[in-house]
């Protein structure tokens, strides 16, 4: 008997439940109700976001697999391809930071090796509340340790990422994990159930009661006492996943796999439904054959468990022994739990009795899709205006405060806990504009960057998001790489509030516009909504990770001035734009103004130019101007201990030139003999132990003292 209370507890609206009744033509069983609940959750169905995501450009000459599979795949030439995706694990990480973050890494790794790719790099984008909030420090410790614990054990280098802090994340941290792998372009595996009679195999960890309804939890906002959701957080075992990775890749060398999919959110249910949907087939699962780790589990629990480190395989009939042989070798469990059928139904049996029977097309095709109401927030106009502020009276002090600020200070404390070298392919690790990882036995390197300036997006979701894309592309140019694809992780508040939906829609439009302008396809991604606590939404945070390709040798570039006597020039005009800047936020406590405008034509030309200069070896440093503007960018280049004397480029106010965050600006350092080739506005020469920029004159030691120890002192 299904009561309205049970329907509500499963997160289904009365209208959605009516669709369930119409679809089945009868009352669902309890397992069926659970299945509809998770499959139609925001997390699995993208019901609020799908119509907007359709605006993103997802095709291109390099795209082999776009959104909809476990991860996107982009052709790199010479028979190999990059397979990547980013995914959120926000809610679990707030409830139980170590396991929440660890299983986020585990999940994204499975998404990538499911496709037949061997993972080669991880990144993480993290957002926490302000430092002064009593929970923040513990969350940082737990999340960083969880990422380290899982990624390090798996032996996949964590080569980059970014971390920012803001009061809007006080009650809702963000943990977005990115993974990229390398796959032979003609050996990509898909999550499909095809071939009537082919057996379905369950491999990996046994099923327990952990994580039941995780997907439903991830589709709700937090209220006081949200920590009580702890049993819905899964527990990860990276050792087991390492074995699973090796066993799956070994099995993939043969020809026995028809389809393969990891059991992530909504576990066995969503993996089997999605595989049947893609294969246009049906499936029958014998739930009593599922390996279980807890006694007396019910079909309902087995279907909804989110136990980690599990995969579902469809195997060519007659090749079952091959599966058992390889999984035995790795001491892993493999069990035959069903078969592919042709009746278009998703059926579950329990000791011979049918406990669920749902038409696959109905389960996926009649999933709700909402064009939720949007409304520009009434506060939007007000925050776009900057109140009158005086010219900065002590720019040196302002620079030091910026360098010591929560977002801009040195995050070595974090990335030192991540093994960023295992695999022996890390040519450029954390600390530069983008990381570079070699693809062994080729002349290729992949470049990686992850970023999102939530303040810019908050002030103008369209321009702010477009700005993230151009900045990421600029970061790649600074290491000589060209973007080949983008994955996103769109973190927003409650979509049932019109102002959040307005932010979301504008942000996706901005991303789509920028990706089209720069020819960067969006090949995979994830949406995380309901990031609110007690009615307060996070800053809109459409995180992106962009993958770039560099063919040929790694350019000899440095994140700091490598020697004295180099000239430094600014490519692009003098900055002046203070709207949305770190300067306004840190020095004046103002999150105001419009984010810097984006000019795609100029960006394209600049990125081409920077790429050529970096690849040809004409420049020794190339550093993008972003948070904190020209002064912070120059200071960051001094962190190796070598300073320089620079004049202010001609532009607007001194404050604007020092701290403005305009797009389309790159600093380069080069041997004076290269001056003609480099061009730009010459600012000065490196050397000495002071950084002089017009009116700013600071000892390099003071810059380092402000920047380097701040985070580790706070974190402890």
């Amino acid at each position, binding site marked *: 008997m299904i009561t309205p209370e049970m329907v509500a507890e499963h997160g289904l609206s009365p209208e959605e439940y009516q669709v369930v009744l119409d679809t089945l033509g009868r009352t669902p069983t309890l397992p069926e109700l659970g299945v509809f609940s998770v499959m139609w959750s925001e997390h699995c169905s993208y019901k609020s976001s799908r119509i907007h995501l359709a605006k993103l450009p997802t095709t291109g000459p390099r795209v082999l697999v776009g959104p909809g599979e476990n991860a996107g795949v982009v052709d790199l030439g010479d028979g190999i391809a990059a397979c990547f995706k980013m995914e959120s694990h926000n809610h679990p990480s707030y409830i139980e930071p170590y396991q929440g973050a660890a299983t986020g890494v585990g999940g994204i790794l499975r998404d990538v090796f499911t496709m037949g790719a061997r993972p080669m790099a991880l990144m993480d984008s993290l957002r926490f509340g302000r430092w002064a909030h009593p929970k923040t420090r513990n969350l940082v410790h737990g999340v960083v340790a969880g990422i380290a614990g899982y990624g390090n054990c798996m032996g996949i280098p964590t080569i980059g990422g970014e971390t920012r802090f803001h009061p809007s994340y006080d009650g809702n941290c963000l943990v977005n994990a990115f993974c990229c792998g390398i796959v032979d372009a003609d050996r990509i595996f898909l999550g499909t159930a095809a071939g009537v009679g082919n057996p379905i195999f369950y491999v990996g960890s046994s099923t327990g009661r952990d994580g039941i309804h995780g997907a439903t939890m991830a589709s709700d906002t937090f209220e006081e006492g949200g920590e009580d959701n702890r049993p819905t957080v899964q527990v990860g075992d990276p050792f*087991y996943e390492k074995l699973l990775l090796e066993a799956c890749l070994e099995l993939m060398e043969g020809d026995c796999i028809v389809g393969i999919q990891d059991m992530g959110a909504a576990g066995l249910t969503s993996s089997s439904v999605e595989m049947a949907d893609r294969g246009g087939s049906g499936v029958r699962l014998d739930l009593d054959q599922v390996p279980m780790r807890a006694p007396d589990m019910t079909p309902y629990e087995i279907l909804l468990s989110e136990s980690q480190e599990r995969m579902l395989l469809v195997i060519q009939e007659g090749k079952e022994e091959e599966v058992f042989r390889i999984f035995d070798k790795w001491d892993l469990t493999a069990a035959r739990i069903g078969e592919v059928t042709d009746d278009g139904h998703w059926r579950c049996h329990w000791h011979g009795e049918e406990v669920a029977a749902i038409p696959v097309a109905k389960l996926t095709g009649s999933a709700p899709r909402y064009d939720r109401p949007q409304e520009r927030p009434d506060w939007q106009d007000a925050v776009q205006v900057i109140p009158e502020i005086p010219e900065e009276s002590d720019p040196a002090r302002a620079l030091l405060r910026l360098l010591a600020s929560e977002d801009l200070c040195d995050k070595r404390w974090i990335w030192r806990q991540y*093994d960023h070298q295992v695999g022996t392919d890390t040519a450029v690790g954390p600390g530069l504009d983008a990381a570079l990882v*070699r693809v062994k036995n080729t002349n290729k390197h992949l470049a990686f960057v992850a970023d999102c300036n939530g303040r810019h997006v908050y002030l103008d979701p369209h321009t702010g998001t477009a700005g993230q894309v151009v900045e990421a592309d600029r970061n790649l140019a600074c290491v000589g790489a060209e973007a080949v694809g983008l994955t996103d992780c769109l973190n927003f508040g409650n979509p049932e509030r019109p102002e959040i939906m307005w932010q979301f829609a504008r942000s996706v439009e901005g991303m789509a516009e920028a990706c089209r302008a720069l020819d960067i396809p969006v090949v995979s991604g994830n949406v995380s909504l309901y990031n609110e606590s007690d009615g307060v939404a996070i800053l809109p945070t459409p995180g992106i990770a962009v993958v770039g390709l560099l063919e040929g040798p790694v350019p000899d570039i440095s994140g700091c001035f490598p020697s004295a006597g180099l000239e430094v020039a600014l490519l692009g005009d003098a900055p002046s734009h203070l709207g949305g800047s770190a300067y306004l936020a840190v020095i004046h406590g103002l999150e105001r103004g419009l984010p810097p405008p984006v000019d795609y034509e100029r960006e394209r030309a600049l990125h081409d130019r920077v790429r050529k200069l970096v690849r040809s070896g004409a420049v020794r440093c190339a550093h993008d101007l972003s948070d904190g503007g020209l002064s912070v960018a120059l200071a960051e280049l001094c962190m190796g201990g070598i300073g320089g004397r620079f004049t202010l480029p001609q532009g607007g106010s001194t404050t604007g030139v020092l701290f403005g965050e305009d797009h389309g600006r790159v600093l380069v350092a080069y041997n004076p003999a290269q001056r003609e080739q480099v061009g730009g506005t010459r600012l000065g020469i490196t050397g000495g132990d002071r950084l002089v920029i017009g009116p700013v004159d600071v000892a390099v030691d003071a810059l380092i003292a402000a920047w380097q120890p701040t985070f580790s002192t706070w974190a402890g």
Partner: protein
Amino acid sequence: MATVGVVTFPGSNCDADLRYAVDHTEGLEAVAIWHKQTELPELDAVLLPGGFSYGDYLRCGAIAQFSPVMHEVVAFAKRGGPVLGICNGFQILTETGLLPGALIRNSGLKFLCQDVHLSVEGRPTPFTTDLTRDRSLRFPIAHMEGNFVADEDTLDRLEGEGQVIFRYEGGAPNGASRDIAGISNTSGNVVGLMPHPERVVEACVGGTDGVGVFTSLQRALS
């Protein structure tokens, strides 16, 4: 061509890196050895890689010492065969008793991945004769349990017998006793160290200070 066995335990994750570094060395050829093997093929040396063998459950290296293959590796070492353990491999060597002491959690209680500067000292070993003693070497570390400990008598004996082979310069980041990064057994054929020489064998990815470990082995075997 000398053949060098690189053991893969469940959870090893530097085994491929180590085979790559061996194959990168002229005159050496890597052979993958599976932890369930009960006998070794004809080998000239055995290397135990880094990683998290058996998930580091119970204690790093504590379960790996009971792997079927370790029985053979211990016998190989006792016959005088060159054996090198890196990171988790070093931990396994101390657990088997081929090397003294133990590796406990870093004093800062955090995983550390960073470059360290090492001095090479002590007796000559098959893995270190080509390494310069004129300057410090830059190797990376990446571990949670690299804090070498032993009782004072053992430490004195290690120092006195020239069994301290690698030492951190400028202080051990993990709290290791007497800044010890790597040691050998009394006859010098078994060496263990926490830093990763296999990560510094190419200029384009981190440097070349680790090359000497592998060329030393090649020289010792030829």
